[in-house]
């Protein structure tokens, strides 16, 4: 499979994502600069973490107007899978590809730690290979990861099983204490209605090899690979 990893000024998880896709999973992946404007030939898009454009105005607010994001909009509209990690999640929300917004952490602190996640829906290109009931342990590193959407949007997310991951404690209980940033309903990651665009605040690309202290993140990339390999052939 051929992955595009987008690179904005001040992206800083781009190389990690590239490393996992190429060296850990053995697939083809290439960095695409924010001024590029074509995704022709790519099977999936990863929008990595960082601080695109200094996160001026709001996180993701400027990145969304990059030429490459027009190509991402078109790619997503055709059903192509797009995964936004951390800043990538914020960009997808600002771009309107995902509902809601990510605001300043409830604690006002930048949180850099290991958290636990439960997979609320395994029915997505990004979560289908995660074993039922498995609690994922992944790192977070963000100051603005508090997920917000109004009540109607939250109900829609819940009813549409668009909530993919929620913060839980090590035992799998969804408690307020296990919520590192104040996200409503402990939301850590969601997908769109069509299920081909997803975003999450935790960093699977920083936890895909045992040498890094955990490989749970690999399950998310393996889900995407499995989905790509099994989906019916379609015109790109």
């Amino acid at each position, binding site marked *: 499979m051929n992955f595009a990893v987008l690179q904005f000024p001040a992206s800083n998880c781009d190389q990690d994502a590239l490393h996992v896709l190429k060296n850990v999973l053995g697939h083809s992946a290439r960095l695409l600069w924010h001024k590029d404007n074509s995704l022709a030939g790519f099977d999936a898009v990863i929008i990595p973490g960082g601080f695109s454009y200094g996160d001026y105005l709001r996180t993701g*607010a400027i990145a969304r107007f990059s030429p490459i994001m027009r190509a991402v909009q078109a790619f997503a509209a055709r059903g192509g899978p797009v995964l936004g990690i951390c800043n990538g999640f914020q960009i997808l929300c600002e771009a309107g590809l995902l509902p809601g*917004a990510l*605001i300043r952490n409830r604690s006002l602190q930048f949180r850099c730690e290991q958290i636990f996640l439960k997979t609320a829906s395994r029915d997505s290109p990004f979560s289908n290979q995660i074993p039922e009931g498995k609690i994922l342990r992944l790192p977070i590193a963000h100051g603005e990861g508090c997920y*917000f959407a109004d009540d109607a949007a939250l109900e829609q997310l819940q009813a549409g099983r668009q909530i993919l991951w929620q913060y839980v404690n090590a035992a799998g209980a969804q408690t307020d204490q296990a919520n590192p940033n104040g996200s409503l309903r402990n939301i850590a990651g969601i997908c769109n209605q069509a299920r081909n665009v997803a975003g999450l605040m935790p960093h699977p690309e920083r936890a895909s090899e045992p040498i890094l202290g955990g490989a749970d993140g690999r399950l998310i990339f393996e889900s995407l690979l499995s989905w790509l390999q099994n989906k019916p052939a379609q015109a790109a």
Partner: protein
Amino acid sequence: MKAKIIITPKKAVLDPQGKTVANALEQMGYKGIGAVHVGKYLEIELPAGDKESWRRQLDDACHNFLSNPVIEDYSMEIE
């Protein structure tokens, strides 16, 4: 001409900055202060011209870019 735009978090949105500032004010002895909301202020310099046309354009810019309607409200004055 100048546009003055004030962006504030929506009431339903958690505003930990505002809450922290309110707590600090209380501790400093400013008793009886209600909720504090921390927002942004933008000043945009404009060439002299059609005020209503600028208002329409900037209203559009506020809605699509300068504020995020999911989490923020804005108000604008042109003078």
